[in-house]
C-alpha cells in the first residue's frame, strides 16, 4: 500500500506539472500575440525594474566626485560639506558644488545623476520665491508646497505605488485562496458560517472603515498593507470557493480520495492548480484597484506617512489651490498611464486565458 503510494505519487505530480506548464506556455504564447497587452507588460516591467535603480538616476547626491586628486562616491556614502571645502553646515549640495568646481576651472569635477534632484529634498535654497514653483527647464514638473521636486517625487512614487499594490495583491490572494479553499472544499457548516462572516465583512464600507482606522493611528507601509489586505481578499474567496465546489465533484478528485490522498494533498496538488485560472486573469485589475485605493487614501491624507513620495498627496495639494495646475496634472498623467498599461495587460491576460470563442451568424 505504502509502496504503491510512493511509486504512483511522483508519476502523478510529474504528469500534472507537464500539463500545467504546457498549458501555461500556450497561454503565454497567446498573450504575446496580443500586442497591446504584451508591450504594456514590457513597458511596465522595464520601468518597474528601472525604478529600483532610481537612486542612481534621480538623486541629489553625485555619483562620482573627483576632488583634490581623490575619488568619492557620495551616492553610497555620506560626506559632509567640509569634505569638499564647501562652506555650509551638514550635507554637501552637489549641484552647487558642480558649479563651484566648473567656475574654479581646476582638476576637480562632479558627475551628477541624470536628474539631479531627490524626492525629499527642498530646493528653497536654490529657487527663490514661495513654493510651489511652476515647471522650469531644471525641474520638469515644478515643485510642491515645500519646494520639493515634483518629477522626482512622481518617479519614486511610481515604485512605491506598484510595490505597494503588488504586495497587497499577493497577500490578499494568499488569504483569499486559503479561505476560499477551506470553505469550498469542506463545505457544510464551515461554509455556512464562513459565508455569514464574509457577508458581514463585505458589507462593511471598506474605504470608510480604512479611513476610520487610519485617522486614529498614523499608518505606515506595513499597517496600510495589512488593512487593505484585510478588505481585499473577499472577491478572490468567492471565485476560489466556487471553483472548489465545482472541482471537488470531478472524477480526478474522487480518484485521489479513493487512493487515500490526504486532504492537504488534494487541496494543494490536485484542485488548486485547476482553480487558479479565473483569479490569475483577475490579478491586473486587482492591482489597478489597489493603486487607486492607495492614491485615494493619500489624497484624503490617510495614506502612507509623510514624507513618502505619493501621487495622491500631490493631487490634494494641487486641489487646495487650482492655480498650481502642475500639482494635479502631472501626478494624474503618471497615474493614468500606469493604470492604462496595467488595464491593457489585464485585458490581454483575460483574453489569453479565456477558452471561450464566440462565433455568430450574420
Amino acid at each position, binding site marked *: 500500500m505504502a509502496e504503491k503510494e510512493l511509486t504512483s505519487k511522483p508519476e502523478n505530480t510529474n504528469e500534472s506539472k507537464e500539463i500545467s506548464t504546457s498549458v501555461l506556455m500556450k497561454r503565454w504564447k497567446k498573450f504575446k500575440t496580443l500586442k497591446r497587452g504584451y508591450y504594456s507588460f514590457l513597458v511596465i516591467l522595464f520601468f518597474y525594474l528601472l525604478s529600483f535603480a532610481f537612486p542612481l538616476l534621480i538623486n541629489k547626491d553625485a555619483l562620482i566626485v573627483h576632488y583634490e586628486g581623490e575619488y568619492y562616491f557620495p551616492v553610497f556614502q555620506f560626506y559632509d560639506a567640509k569634505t569638499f571645502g564647501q562652506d555650509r553646515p551638514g550635507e554637501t549640495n552637489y549641484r552647487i558644488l558642480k558649479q563651484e568646481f566648473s567656475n574654479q576651472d581646476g582638476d576637480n569635477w562632479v558627475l551628477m545623476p541624470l536628474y539631479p534632484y531627490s524626492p525629499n529634498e527642498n530646493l528653497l535654497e536654490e529657487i527663490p520665491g514661495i513654493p510651489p514653483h511652476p515647471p522650469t527647464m531644471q525641474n520638469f514638473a515644478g515643485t510642491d508646497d515645500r519646494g520639493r521636486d515634483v518629477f522626482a517625487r512622481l518617479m519614486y512614487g511610481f515604485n512605491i505605488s506598484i510595490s505597494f499594490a503588488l504586495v497587497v495583491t499577493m497577500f490578499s490572494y494568499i488569504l483569499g485562496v486559503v479561505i476560499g479553499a477551506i470553505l469550498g472544499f469542506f463545505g457544510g457548516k464551515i461554509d455556512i458560517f464562513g459565508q455569514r462572516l464574509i457577508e458581514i465583512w463585505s458589507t462593511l464600507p471598506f474605504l470608510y472603515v480604512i479611513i476610520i482606522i487610519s485617522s486614529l*493611528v498614523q499608518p505606515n507601509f506595513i499597517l496600510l498593507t495589512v488593512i487593505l489586505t484585510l478588505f481585499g481578499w473577499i472577491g478572490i474567496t468567492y471565485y476560489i470557493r466556487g471553483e472548489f465546489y465545482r472541482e471537488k465533484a470531478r472524477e480526478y478528485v474522487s480518484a485521489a480520495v479513493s487512493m487515500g490522498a490526504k486532504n492537504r494533498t488534494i487541496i494543494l496538488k490536485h484542485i488548486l492548480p485547476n482553480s487558479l485560472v479565473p483569479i490569475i486573469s483577475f490579478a491586473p485589475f486587482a492591482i489597478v484597484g489597489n493603486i487607486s485605493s492607495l492614491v485615494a487614501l493619500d489624497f484624503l491624507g490617510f495614506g502612507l506617512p509623510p514624507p513618502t513620495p505619493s501621487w495622491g498627496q500631490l493631487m490634494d495639494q494641487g486641489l487646495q489651490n*487650482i492655480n498650481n495646475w502642475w500639482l494635479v496634472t502631472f501626478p494624474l498623467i503618471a497615474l493614468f498611464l500606469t493604470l492604462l498599461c496595467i488595464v491593457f495587460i489585464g485585458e490581454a491576460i483575460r483574453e489569453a486565458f479565456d477558452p471561450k470563442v464566440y462565433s455568430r451568424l450574420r
Partner: protein
Amino acid sequence: MISYFVRRFLLIVPTFLGITLITFIILQVVPGGPLEMELMKLRGMGAPGGEVGPTGTGTSGAINIPESALEEMKRFYGFDLPIHERYIRWLGNLLSFDLGRSYVYAEPVWDVITQRFPVSIYFGLIGFILSYAICVPLGVMKAVKNGSVFDFTSSVIVFAGYAMPGFAFGAIMLVLFGGGSFWDVFPLGGFRSDDFEYLSFSQQILDQLYHTVLPVAAYLTGSFATLTILTKNSVIENLSQDYVKTAFAKGISEKKVIFKHALRNSLIPIATGLGHFLSLVLAGSFLIEKVFNIDGMGLLGFNSIIQRDYPTVMGILVISSFLMLIGNIISDMLYAVIDPRIRFK
C-alpha cells in the same frame, strides 16, 4: 422561493449586528477618540487663554482638568460605561430610531443626515440614470459591431475610463475648467451658488446645471467602463447561443434577431444591478464630494470621522449598510422576476 427571501430578510439581522459591532469596537477601542481630542483641545487652548486672561497672570503649560469635569465629559461621551453596555445602549436607541446626538452639530444625527439626503440623491440619481442611458446602448453597439473600427476606438475610451479614478478625473476637470490657470467655464464646486434663492427660475436651472456637469462627469467615469463591458460581454455571449442561430435560420432579419431576441436576454445581468441603486445614491462618493466640496452624505461621513463625531459616523454606517443589504436582496429578487429559469432555494 418566498421562504428563501424571508430567510434572506431574517439574515439581515445578524449581518447588521456584525457590521455595527465591528465598527463600534474599532471606534471605541482605538485611541484618539472624541474624549482625547476634546482634552487635547482644552489643553491646547489653555496656554493662549492664560496669556490674554483678564488677570494678566499667564498660566504656563497644560492646565489641569478637575476630576469632576473629567467625569462629566466621560459621561457626555458615554465613556463611563463598559464597552458592551455602551453597545447595547446604542442598539436599544437604534431600535427606537434614535441615532443619538451629533457631537459637532448638536442636533439629532438623524436630522443631520437627512438634511444631506437631497444633495446626495440628486447627484447619485443623475449619475446613475446617465450611466445606464450611455453605457447600455454603447455596450450593445460594441457587441453588434464586435471587431469593427467603432468597437476598437470606443474600447480605447472605455479603457481610459477604467484607468481613471472618478475623483482624479474630477480633479483634472476642475484644474482645466474651474478658472485656475486655464478656462473659467464651471464653478469650483459646491451644490449651488450662494445667491441661489435670489435668482430667477431660469437662472436657477442654469446655475444648478453649471454646478452639476463636472461632478456628474466624475461620477460617470467611475461606472462607465465596467457597465459598458458588462453589457458588451453579455450581448456577445447571447449572440452565440443556439436560440439566436435558430432565429437566424428561420430567416428573421438581423436587426430583429438582435433587438428582439438577444437583447432581452442580455439585459438580465444588467437589470439586476438596478437593485443597488439604493446604495449607489449614498455610497462611494465622498472622494468626489470632497473634490467638488459638495455638502452631501460622503463629505459628512468624511468630516465626522475627522472630527470624531462618533454618533454621526455610526449613523451613516447604519444607513448605508442597511441600504446595501436591502439592495442585495432586491437584486436577487429582480433576477428571479426577470429570469424565470432562476430558482432560489
